[in-house]
């Protein structure tokens, strides 16, 4: 059985204390002392560690022979882990319960005894109340494979139901994670009264299966969990005096490695960084107001206050401003700049928003048009234009939502963002060549799913961390799904690849050959560098005077900067040139 209190949307911003907590309480009965169960708990631990490292987790077994809880007032309830942040130690503990040997250990330490779910729930409610931190979300998960835990003991069933409803009243969400059971697990026998009903279903119309998919738990995938929260809540202005409140969400954004933390070498404690700004001559500390901002153009230094630099970026107040509508085919595929945003009404800010939004969504979708909007996210952010593409809700057979209703906001490029290319003039393929390629394409068809590929860089990183934390010999192997399965492809293609090659390439053509050999034969992989050409000061001054420093390459400029002791803050070519020019014209 597990319990979690997960962070509210703004929680992590507010305080580090009292994040989320999970309490795991699997029932232990003889048939459940299999390798199955602890494995699953372990997965919850390891993935929870990656997904949200501020959640508190506890693990409590019920139906044990031994009892272990404060004051030992609850029989057959064994608190294996108190409510706390999960760490490497705990993962190792649970790991010890895996497999046959683990089952044996568990049997020895806890044993298997009477089941009293009511007691277990009571114990859990004490765990929650013992925590002094404010918990935003509390979740309790029951892992069991017995649909009638008390074997028909009506009194215990009743007691458990009462305790469950007490818990639910205090805001705890109870989930059931039922495991495989021969003959099927019948939720209606008992657990339907224990677990929390789907929240606000009447209001929200969302229906979920009573229990999530267990296989998700078994997936050894680490991903940072993202709490649903809007990046902005603003007005969508349809025209003067017609403001609809909407929330802006991000639904796909490149996940990156979490930031590294600096530690003190001697004790591995985190250190804090402080940035100080001081005057080089007097050594006195400077306030931000003691500074100004400059840019140099054509040899002239242009000075502005920091406020001015900020206010230059201001065009309009935050919001979405409707410009008009366009047919969908006007949205160009290659007009992509960054991840799209998702727009959904905020009825709580402006009543009536959802209705306007729904009407707009429906008509845009039916008429196959998108709305063009000017988007200002925050104060002092320059405007960008979004194509608001309608998306209607889609649900699966079980009425679970597959696709959410709302608009996708696609960022559109400005003139500056589109580069002009010199397109080569080349012959095109003949019909037979195209047909041959079609056969190839046909052979290598697959059903793309956006969640089918894991990021090998991140997965490797998380596994490395895990290995270090748990003192594993080597990190767990990852399967790199980005690599083409060459053998399978070759097999499927058979002779097609050769046939296509014969159709398009002459016999003496090597498509793998290098067009311009980069290295001379006999040299080894690019480790050696070109000998540095030191430039004389006169030479450099000459370049400066003639204003053709721009002809030099960035590495040469960098070397020149080093050579003449010029400090450069940036790495942009223009910045190097400016720095050198400033130094040599002093």
């Amino acid at each position, binding site marked *: 059985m597990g319990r979690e209190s997960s962070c509210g*949307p703004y929680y992590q911003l507010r305080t580090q204390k009292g994040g989320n907590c999970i309490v795991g309480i699997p029932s232990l009965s003889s048939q459940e002392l299999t390798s199955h169960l602890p494995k699953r708990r372990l997965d919850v631990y390891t993935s929870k560690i990656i997904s949200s490292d501020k959640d508190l987790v506890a693990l409590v077994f019920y139906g044990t022979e031994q009892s272990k809880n404060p004051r030992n007032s609850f029989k057959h309830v064994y608190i294996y882990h108190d409510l706390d942040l999960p760490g490497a130690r705990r993962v190792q503990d649970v790991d010890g319960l895996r497999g046959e040997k683990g089952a044996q250990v568990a049997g020895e330490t806890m044993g298997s005894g009477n089941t009293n779910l009511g007691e277990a729930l009571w114990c859990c409610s004490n765990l929650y109340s013992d925590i002094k931190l404010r918990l935003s979300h509390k979740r309790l998960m029951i892992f069991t494979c017995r649909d009638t835990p008390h074997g028909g003991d009506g009194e215990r069933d009743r007691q458990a139901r009462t305790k469950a409803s007490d818990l639910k009243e205090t805001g705890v969400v109870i989930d059931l994670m039922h495991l495989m059971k021969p003959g099927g697990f019948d939720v209606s026998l008992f657990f339907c009264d224990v677990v929390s009903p789907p*929240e606000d279903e009447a209001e929200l119309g969302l229906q979920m299966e009573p229990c999530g998919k267990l296989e998700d738990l078994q997936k050894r995938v680490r991903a940072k969990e993202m709490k649903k929260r809007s990046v902005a809540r603003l007005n969508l202005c349809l025209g003067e005096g017609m403001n609809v409140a909407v929330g802006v969400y991000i639904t796909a954004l490149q996940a990156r490695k979490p930031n590294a933390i600096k530690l003190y070498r001697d004790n*591995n404690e985190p250190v804090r960084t402080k940035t100080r*700004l001081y005057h080089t001559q007097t050594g006195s500390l400077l306030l931000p107001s003691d500074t100004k901002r400059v840019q140099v153009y054509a040899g002239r230094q242009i000075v502005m206050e920091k406020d001015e630099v900020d206010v230059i970026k201001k065009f309009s107040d935050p919001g979405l401003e409707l410009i008009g509508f366009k047919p969908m085919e006007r949205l160009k595929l290659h007009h992509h700049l960054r991840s799209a945003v998702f727009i959904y009404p905020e009825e709580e800010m402006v009543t009536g928003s959802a209705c306007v939004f729904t009407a707009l969504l429906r*008509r845009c979708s039916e008429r196959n048009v998108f709305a063009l909007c000017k988007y200002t996210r925050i104060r002092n952010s320059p405007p960008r234009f979004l194509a608001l593409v309608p998306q209607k809700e889609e649900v699966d057979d079980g009425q679970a939502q597959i696709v959410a209703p709302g608009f996708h906001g696609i960022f559109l490029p400005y003139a500056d963002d589109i580069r002009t290319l010199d397109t080569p003039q080349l012959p095109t393929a003949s019909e037979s060549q195209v047909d041959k390629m079609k056969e190839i394409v046909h052979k290598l068809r697959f059903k793309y799913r956006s969640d089918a590929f894991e990021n090998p860089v991140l997965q490797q990183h998380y596994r490395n961390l895990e290995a270090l934390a748990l003192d594993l010999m080597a990190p767990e192997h990852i399967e790199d799904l980005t690599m083409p399965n060459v053998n399978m492809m070759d097999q499927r293609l058979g002779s097609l690849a050769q046939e296509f090659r014969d159709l398009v390439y002459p016999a003496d053509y090597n498509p793998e050959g290098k067009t311009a050999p980069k290295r001379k034969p006999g040299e080894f992989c690019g480790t050696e560098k070109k000998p540095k050409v030191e430039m004389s000061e006169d030479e450099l001054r000459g370049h400066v005077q003639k204003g053709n420093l721009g002809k030099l390459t960035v590495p040469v400029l960098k070397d020149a900067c080093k050579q003449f002791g010029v400090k450069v803050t940036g790495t942009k070519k223009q910045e190097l040139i400016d720095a050198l020019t400033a130094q040599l014209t002093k």
Partner: protein
Amino acid sequence: FQQNRCNEYSPGNVLVSVNPPLLEISGSCPCVLPNKDTLVLCLDVGFSMSNSATGQEPPFQQAKKVIQKFVQRQVFAENKDELGLVLFGSDNTKNNLAKDDQYQNISVHRHLMIPNFELLEEIQNDVQPGSQQADWLDALVVCMDLLQNETLGKKYERLNIVMLTDLNTPSSPDQLDIIIGNLKRAGITLQFFLPFPVDGGGSNPPHGGKALSREQQQGLEMTKKVMMSLDEEDVTGVCNPDLSVFKRVEKRPMAWPCTLTIGSSLSIKIVGYKAVCEERPRKSWSVVDAQTHQKDDIKRDVVYCLNDDEETEVQKDDTIQGYRYGSDIVPFSKVDQDQMKYKTDGKSFAVLGFTKQSMINRHQFVGTQVLKVFAPKDDEHAGVALSGLIRALDDLKMVAVVRYVYARNGNPQVGAAFPCIKEKYECLVYVQLPFMEDLRQYSFPSLENNKKYTPSEDQLSAVDSLIDSMMLVEEDGEKKDLFKVNHIPNPQYQRLFQCLHHRAVNPSVPLPPMDPWLTTALQRPLAVATRCQAPLETLKKKFPLKEVVKKKELKTSKELFGNSCLGTGRSTSLAELFGNG
């Protein structure tokens, strides 16, 4: 010759131009090769330039603005283009050809140089209308002479002369053919900015203005002759409707040569180019001391200190890096990390398989760029092979899903290569697709099944009329698009350069308001704004909206979070809970 409507010099006036045009709108330039141009601005400051119909700006002021805007852009573009300025009709005479009474009142104000703020200031303060007159053809000859003498032994991509005159001086056409011949020989291109329209034969009086004088008509005929005889190629020139637009900093597209692979035995040589990417300014702000304006007077220091009461400082060398693993922080040195991290062995554009275009969700594109993939310029076999793939995909409405690695030890991506067939070229368009970790599968409450939010037929038809009135693409006829975002220059940079220019020339004056043209360019087009008035009023009546008064402070976490996370809570799937989603 090509006539281009241009709203700047004066509304409804015309820029007569030969290739290449003075102004290039982004995207119209046929290629972005590294080039260095030389340009001589030839400005008529003769007395007739000060004359104007009442209420109109004199031609001189209009021409001066054109020049200022142009020089401004050149200064901020910081390219190596050199620029000269020749005034004619000036009170003084200063040029190489002046002798006796020849080439009088023509003054080389500035020799070929990279433009700077001094030039801008000179134009602002020193270039004033004169009381004399000079033959514009003579001035042209002076400009040609200047170009020839000062570019001797240097390499230039293009030589240009831009004439700004009202053609109101008698001009002798005897030398015209010789001049044309010389222009051709030297490869000099010519452009005219005239303060009156030339379409309709040039003899019609410009609307609202005076009829052309005899000199002007004669001059115009000569201009036409020059332009016609110079115009050998197709003129593709586009006149930017607004000269205030700062020319974008052109970047040379970087070629990314690679090999597209399908399985182990099918390879096609390719070259990728960034086609769309958020352009950022070349320069960033640096911090200086407020008094001295010196960068060196300020030093930024990062210190590390322990989390104890004394905030004991420690040396950077005594720190190592670690990552959070639950409640623990796992020390993980950079060296170890580099050794253990995922590695790739080189650039790659490997096809993983093919899938229906409809399987790829547009809104799930990630990454910050779009690549266009061609075959190498000189490799026609690769061209045919790639064309085969592009056409097959296009016919089948499919895409290639590929593994993309930019360079050795670069992070691998999975992306989609779409077929793209244009009149002039074919290519693959590559966009990065999300990894499982990038997706956030939030669910949102249904809008359809909720009676409270269901709009009535009446309301729907009100929305329909709004959409009708606000269509930016006219359905009938030419399908003109009233609002093309990809034709708007990034307003952030337009505004930045406007302010930089202002501050550079007027250091102690507050920043100017935004240019009106820029504000207008970012607004709903006037025609649409007018058209949608009535439907908008109806909409307001049909849909009551009420702003919710914000409660001061929400006390409990339930209240605080309960509202903002509609649809989470119980409905959160386990996958989401454990971060498996």
